[in-house]
C-alpha cells in the first residue's frame, strides 16, 4: 500500500488535541521539518509525551500548540535551559507532567506490547511519586517494584534515514523511535530519502519498523535540521545558539518563528532561510 505523502499532507494527519510522541532526543533524528509544518498548520491543544528532549518540545510550546507535556528532561544540555518551556511553566500556562525516563519509556513499551502496565525498579523516595498516584508499588517474591501504566500516544512523529513508499522505515541507532512507532495509533514519518522497495528488501536488518505501522511517509532531506541525522549530518550548533538567543524573550522568539517557519512556508524555503546549500552541506559528516 502506498503511504507516500507530501510534508504538508503528512502534517495534516495531526489533529487538534492529539497525544504526540516524538522521535530522537536533543540533537539527533528529531522530526523538525514535520514539526515546523504542524506549527504552520496551527494545530492546538496537543499533549506531548517525550523522555529527554529539547528543541522539538520547546518550539511547539513557544508556538502555542501545546497544552501539556509529559517528560523527564526538557532542555538543551550544555547549551542551556529550554526558554519557551521554562517561561510557560513558570507563568503557569503549560502543564508539565514530570516523570523519569524509564518510567515513560516503559509506559510506552507497555502500550507497544498491548499491556496495561509494566513493572520497573526505581522511583521510591523521589518527590516525583507525589505527583503520580497512578504508579503503584507491588511486591513480588519479596522484591518491591513499581507498576507504571501504559502510555498511549495517538500519533508518533518520526524522522528516519530512509523508507520505501510502503512506509518500511530505516533509522540508525533508534531504540526509543521503534517503541513510539509500535505504541502509537498513527505513525507519521519523514525520511532523508525515499528509496525503492528492493533497497529495503536488500537490507532488512536495518529496518526499524515495518510499513504496516506507518500511516504516511514524506521525503524531507535535512528534515532533522537544526538537529542532525546519524551518519549523514551533524546538528547545527550555530543555529541552536541563535534559537536560544531568540528564545530569551517572547518577542525575540516570535521573530525567530516568523523568519524560519511562517515566512518560509515550505521545507526548501526553510533550508534557504537557515543558510542555504553551502551552510547545510558544511554539516555533512
Amino acid at each position, binding site marked *: 500500500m502506498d503511504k507516500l505523502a507530501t510534508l504538508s499532507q503528512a502534517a495534516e494527519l495531526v489533529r487538534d488535541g492529539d497525544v504526540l510522541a516524538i522521535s530522537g532526543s536533543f540533537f539527533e533524528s528529531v522530526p523538525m521539518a514535520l514539526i515546523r509544518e504542524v506549527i504552520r498548520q496551527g494545530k492546538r491543544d496537543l499533549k506531548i509525551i517525550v523522555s529527554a528532549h529539547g528543541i522539538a518540545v520547546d518550539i511547539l510550546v513557544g508556538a502555542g500548540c501545546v497544552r501539556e507535556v509529559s517528560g523527564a*528532561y526538557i*532542555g538543551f*544540555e550544555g547549551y542551556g535551559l529550554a526558554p519557551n518551556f521554562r517561561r510557560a511553566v513558570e507563568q503557569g500556562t503549560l502543564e508539565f507532567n514530570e516523570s523519569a525516563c524509564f518510567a515513560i519509556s516503559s509506559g510506552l513499551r507497555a502500550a507497544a506490547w498491548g499491556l496495561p502496565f509494566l513493572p520497573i525498579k*526505581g*522511583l*521510591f523516595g523521589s*518527590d516525583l511519586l507525589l505527583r503520580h498516584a497512578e504508579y503503584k508499588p507491588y511486591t513480588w517474591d519479596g522484591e518491591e517494584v513499581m507498576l507504571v501504566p501504559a502510555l498511549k500516544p495517538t500519533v508518533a512523529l518520526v524522522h528516519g534515514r530512509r523508507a520505501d513508499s510502503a512506509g518500511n522505515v530505516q533509522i540508525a541507532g533508534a531504540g*526509543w523511535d521503534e517503541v513510539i512507532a509500535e505504541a502509537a495509533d498513527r505513525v507519521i514519518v519523514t525520511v532523508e530519502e525515499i528509496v525503492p522497495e528492493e533497497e529495503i528488501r536488500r537490507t532488512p536488518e536495518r529496518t526499524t519498523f515495518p510499513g504496516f505501522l506507518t500511516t504516511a511517509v514524506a521525503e524531507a532531506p535535512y528534515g532533522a535540521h537544526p538537529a542532525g541525522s546519524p551518519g549523514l549530518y551533524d546538528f547545527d550548533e550555530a543555529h541552536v545558539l541563535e534559537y536560544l538567543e531568540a528564545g530569551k524573550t517572547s518577542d525575540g522568539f516570535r521573530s525567530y518563528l516568523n523568519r524560519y517557519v511562517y515566512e518560509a512556508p515550505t521545507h526548501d524555503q526553510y533550508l534557504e532561510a537557515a543558510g542555504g546549500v553551502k551552510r547545510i552541506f558544511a554539516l555533512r559528516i
Partner: protein
Amino acid sequence: MMGPATDFTPDELMVSALAHTLRDGERVMHGVASMIPVIAIQLARATHAPGLICVNLEGIDARPSRYALTTEYFALAEGATKTSNLLRLFEYAQRGLIDAAFFSGAQIDRLGNVNTSAIGEDYERPKVRLTGGAGQAILCHTVGRIIIWLPRHERNRLPESVDFITLPGHHPNVKRRMDRVVTNLAVMDFEPQSGAMRLVSIHPGVTIEEIQDNTGFDLILPDTIPTTKPPTGEEITLLRTRVDPQGIRKQGM
C-alpha cells in the same frame, strides 16, 4: 610516572578528582549535559583504569575523537564496540550491570537529595523551572554507586534541604551507595550512620573557611582534613594533548 602537576586549571582538577573515583574494570555511565564526567571517564581509561567501560546514550566503550555540549552526539559512538541508546542504558542498569554513575543537579542537600526539577517553594509555579532529572529517580536505585559532580560549590546549591527531591540520597528501598560529591572546592562523602554529608578532602589552595562559607549546612568535619590529590603531570599532559585537546571540559564547567 611523573609527579604532581603544578600548573592546572579548576576544570582539570575536577576532571582528575572524578577520574580518581573510578576503578579499572568497572562499567560506568554519565547523565545528560555531563561533559566533565565524559572527559573524566576517558582520562581514567587513559591512566589507571584501561579496562573501564563507558556506557552512554550513543555507544559502549567508545573512543571519541571530538565532543559537543551534548551527550546525544554521534562522535560519542566512534570506535564503540556496540551502539547504544536511551532504552538500552536503562535496561542494563535495571539488570544491575552498571557499577557507577555520575549525576549532577541544581541543588544537593545535607542528606544527598538532589534537585534537578524546580527551584522555589511552589513546584507548580516555580521561580526557575529546571530541566527535570531525566533518569535520575530510576537509576539512583539501579546503579551500584553514585558520584555527584558540582562545578559550583555555592551556598544556594548546597542547602540544608532541597526544594524538590528528584533523586533521593537515602531511602530504605535504595540498595546502592551515595559514594562521593566532587565540587570545584572539595571532595565529600556521607557518614554511614547519619547519612549526612562529610568533608573528605579540600582542593589545593582552598581553605576550610571558604568551604564552610559556601555550604548551606554544617558539614561533618574529620579530625584532620587532607588536601585532594592534585592531578599528576601525566594526567595534565594527557588531558591537553590526547583526551581532550578540544578543551570541552572548560565549557562543561
